[in-house]
């Protein structure tokens, strides 16, 4: 309803995103990152429990680690599940966002 009123269908939104995907769309990454921040702390200097901090990593490393979970090289059921539906565009966006996040 809301999207129809505004003309912002998911298809249109996805189209907008893909334009900026190559360099990693920070705004899209920030939205996607909200799935991560249920467990991974922002604004912290040390991790709590068994969930690492993921802010400030360089983008290339970030994407490589996501791919390791996606392909099962790294082993964690929750991370394997989350990365299963991340494509190149989503990984680049997340990496771009977390690289500059604190």
């Amino acid at each position, binding site marked *: *309803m*809301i*999207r*129809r*009123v*505004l*003309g*912002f269908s*998911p298809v*249109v*939104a*996805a189209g*907008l*995103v893909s334009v900026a995907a190559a360099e990693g769309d920070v*705004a*899209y990454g*920030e*939205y*996607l990152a*909200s*799935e991560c*921040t*249920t*467990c*991974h*702390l*922002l*604004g*912290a200097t040390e*991790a*709590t*429990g*068994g*969930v*690492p901090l993921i802010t400030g990593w360089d983008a290339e490393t970030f994407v490589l680690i996501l791919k390791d979970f996606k392909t099962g090289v790294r082993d*964690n*059921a*929750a991370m*394997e*599940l*989350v990365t*299963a*539906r991340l494509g190149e565009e989503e990984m680049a966006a997340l990496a771009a966002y977390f690289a500059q996040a604190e």
Partner: protein
Amino acid sequence: MTNRRTVLRGLAAAGGLLAAPAVLADGHGKPRVVVIGGGSGGATAARYLAKDSGGALDVTLVEPSRTYFTCYFSNLYLGGFQDMKDLGHTYGTLAGAHGVNVVHDWAVDVDRDAKTVALAGGAVLPYDKLILSPGIDFVDGAVPGWDVSKQNKMPHAYKAGSQTELLKAQLEAMPEGGTFAMVAPPNPYRCPPGPYERVSMVAHMLKARNPTAKILIVDPKEKFSKQGLFEEGWQAHYAGMIDRIGPDFGGDAVSVDPEAMTVDIDGSVEQVDVCNVIPAMKAGRIADMAGVTDGRWAPVNAADMSSKVDADVYVLGDAAQQGDMPKSGFSANSQAKVCANAVRGALTGSRVFPARFSNTCWSLISTEDGVKVGATYEATPEKIAKVDGFISQTGEDSALRKATYEESLGWYAGIVSDMFGV
């Protein structure tokens, strides 16, 4: 309302991708969002709306409690793994750092024609968008003999805080070799593994303090969440302590007498020492009063969590009837972020991204023996639909179970930071 919709249709016709604020000042300043309920759904929605809109939205959070105690990890308090004070969270950062107008009052009515919320204290809050995240209430008469006036004799402890502390005190005072009974709820209810994690934590506590004590679960359900994992753990850690009576043996025909401390299971009367009654649940009452429920829950559209009956009202978390997601704090938090993105887009013209949801529920069975179940979800025209999932396996080694428990500690720190701010 009609005027603004007419204006919006005009805007849409003139060019749907106009980035101008969709709700322009019509006699007031910034677009107003009122959020009712400051738990996993409501606190998250308020925080993301305020944080991401950079002051472009007027966000009010209505929550009666000044300190919110999470239901998640309250079982670990019963087991002795958490302090109650660490489960309590306040709203100062939402107000101070994010600019949310935190109103500690009860919402007592919603007028969807006037687009206002009435508070018990007498104030009336106008809204452009209303987000309801009221959690659960109990169904009247669900367990004959029990009502809220009896909750000190037979606590529910399913809204965390004083009820949880009461249940723990009763368990600690239980006579040697006594019986703890749990009347488990029918589906759907908040936190599907919650009652069984509670049994595990009570068993852990009793094994140390009162090892001849017995636990009796009276359950209307044939099956329950993570059943194989819990039953394996109960056999390994608490052999002979826990009995469960399912619907085949009267678990679906239960009444209680809180004065006599008896549980009647299809005509067979059991004397018990502590009784935890977890009644059938429904959406928090304000959802009913807002007229957005159909039966016990409030049906929503999966794409943005908007009510099926009012596009300016959204329902999050336990109260929502959304499809495949379990009623959990993690789910509510996930839904809140999709909703906040959509609401902000509708009110300010910011980018709206496709809905994506996820959930993971960790449970502790014994010391460092953690298990988890999780899934990803997407919005379909009909419902929030499961995409893929995982569950811990029976027979896992202790190192993996310890890592799973430690992961739950990290998740707890993460979600409360995501809800209440840092």
